[in-house]
């Protein structure tokens, strides 16, 4: 080891740095404020025409006016009712079918190819057909949203069931636990993480289809409002509508996260 005869002493160089992402909330806030400021700057100085991009203050003003006049609530409540019904119906059927596919050989053989074939269809493409069947009213919109929720829910549910360790099922069987209790006490809780991940996807899908369906034919609703303001060349009100959609999406995501934290504390 020490061929030269003198033991050379040197400090060990640290080489384990990096790859450790930390949370820096203030950087996020700063970046957000910076972006708004930049937006105000380019619009306030007249660099960008307010017809294309109204200033943040004007968007805020439009939002305030909408809230005060009650227009915001009228549109939002129409949208919330549609997405609420659509999501609940789609989720209920999706969970039921997903459980069937997860539990029984026959229903898997029947259901899986059907789901694989129908899942990729953009559900908004079915709106004209559903209008034909259910009329121009609420039914066709709710049904389109429900369909867009149904498929991701089915897939999340049965893959959730598939991911439940088989040893837990064998354990329950070895204690003679009856089937319905194995389903409700082992499979469903075990599939819950996957199902909640599916909820995130289904909410995003529902929001997309909601806005699109309302753009095609609705008197009230966020989508209808966006089309209206676009046609009337009111970019400030239009952007106020976009902000509302964004906040709606964010709020739903926060709700899901909260539910997840509550229900999945065991992980």
């Amino acid at each position: 080891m020490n061929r030269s005869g003198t033991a050379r002493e040197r400090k060990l160089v640290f080489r384990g740095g990096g790859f450790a992402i930390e949370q820096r909330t203030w950087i996020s806030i700063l970046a957000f404020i910076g972006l708004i400021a930049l937006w105000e700057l380019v619009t306030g100085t007249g660099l960008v025409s307010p017809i294309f991009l109204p200033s943040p203050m004007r968007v805020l003003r439009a939002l305030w006016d909408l809230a005060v006049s009650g227009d915001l609530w009228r549109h939002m409540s129409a949208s919330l009712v549609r997405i609420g019904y659509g999501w609940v119906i789609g989720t209920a059927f999706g969970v039921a079918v997903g459980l069937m596919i997860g539990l029984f050989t026959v229903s898997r053989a029947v259901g899986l190819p059907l789901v694989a074939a129908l899942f990729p269809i953009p559900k908004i493409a079915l709106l004209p057909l559903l209008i034909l069947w259910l009329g121009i009213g609420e039914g066709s919109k709710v049904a389109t949203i429900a369909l867009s929720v149904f498929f991701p829910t089915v897939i999340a549910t049965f893959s959730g069931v598939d991911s439940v360790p088989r040893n837990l099922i064998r354990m329950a069987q070895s204690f003679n636990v009856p089937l319905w209790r194995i389903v409700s006490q082992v499979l469903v809780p075990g599939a819950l993480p996957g199902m909640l991940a599916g909820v995130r996807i289904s909410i995003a899908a529902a929001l997309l289809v909601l806005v699109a369906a309302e753009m095609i034919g609705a008197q009230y609703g966020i989508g209808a409002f966006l089309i209206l303001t676009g046609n009337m060349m009111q970019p400030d009100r239009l952007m106020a509508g976009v902000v509302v959609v964004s906040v709606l999406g964010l709020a739903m995501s926060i709700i899901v996260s909260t539910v997840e934290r509550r229900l999945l504390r065991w992980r």
Partner: protein
Amino acid sequence: MEIALSNITHRFGDLTALENVSLHAHEGEIVAIIGPSGCGKSTLLGIAGGILKPTAGEVVLRGVPAADTLNEITFIFQDFSLLPWLNVRDNVAFVLKHHSLGGAELQRRVADALERTNLTDFAGALPKQLSGGMRQRVGIARALAVRPAVFLMDEPLSALDAQTRELLLDDIVALWQRDHPTILYVTHNFQEAIRLADRVCVLSRRPGRVREIIDIPVPRDSRAKPENQAKVAALGERLWALIKEEAIVADRELVAHV
């Protein structure tokens, strides 16, 4: 209760896991099943417990279980198989709830099982908060709660570190000493077998066959005594020689299969 496995053969596709295995444990006896990895020990236990269907052969039970027995044949699993979303108390109660016990009786059984495994203070803890040894004690508590006549222990200590293994081995001895249940104990560790069993059944490598059944004619409690040490050590050596041979070949075969 007595459990007898007769002429058990089990195939997975064209792979024969077990061939013509016969084995029995008398009332109150501890029989260890030992063999190299992949010899079908756990498969054999699954068959003994009725959660795997053998290709051929049958399992026969003789005797009447105690009146308070809810699940005659009960497993203790290598991976504990606890429901991660339930706390310790609810994991134990899970296997009782479908029996029409009164609320008080259910509570009493849970409390008793937790007390016997020293888990009373951890009744509200989730499995993820417990060490491996504690988790296995929950597994033992869950089994005790149904008052089995036969315990099937599938490498219950294999997922634990050496110190914890020692402690739990004592717990298992204590468990047996109280009610003298019949125990089939699967392991790949011959020292565990020597410490616990009345008889040790050595399985050959795949396909698993009974290679030899060795009696341990020293009472369980006095195996650590100086006058018995030579005898016990000799038995251990004989056992190890049998397993070693099988393990070496099994190890090579495993490589060949990959």
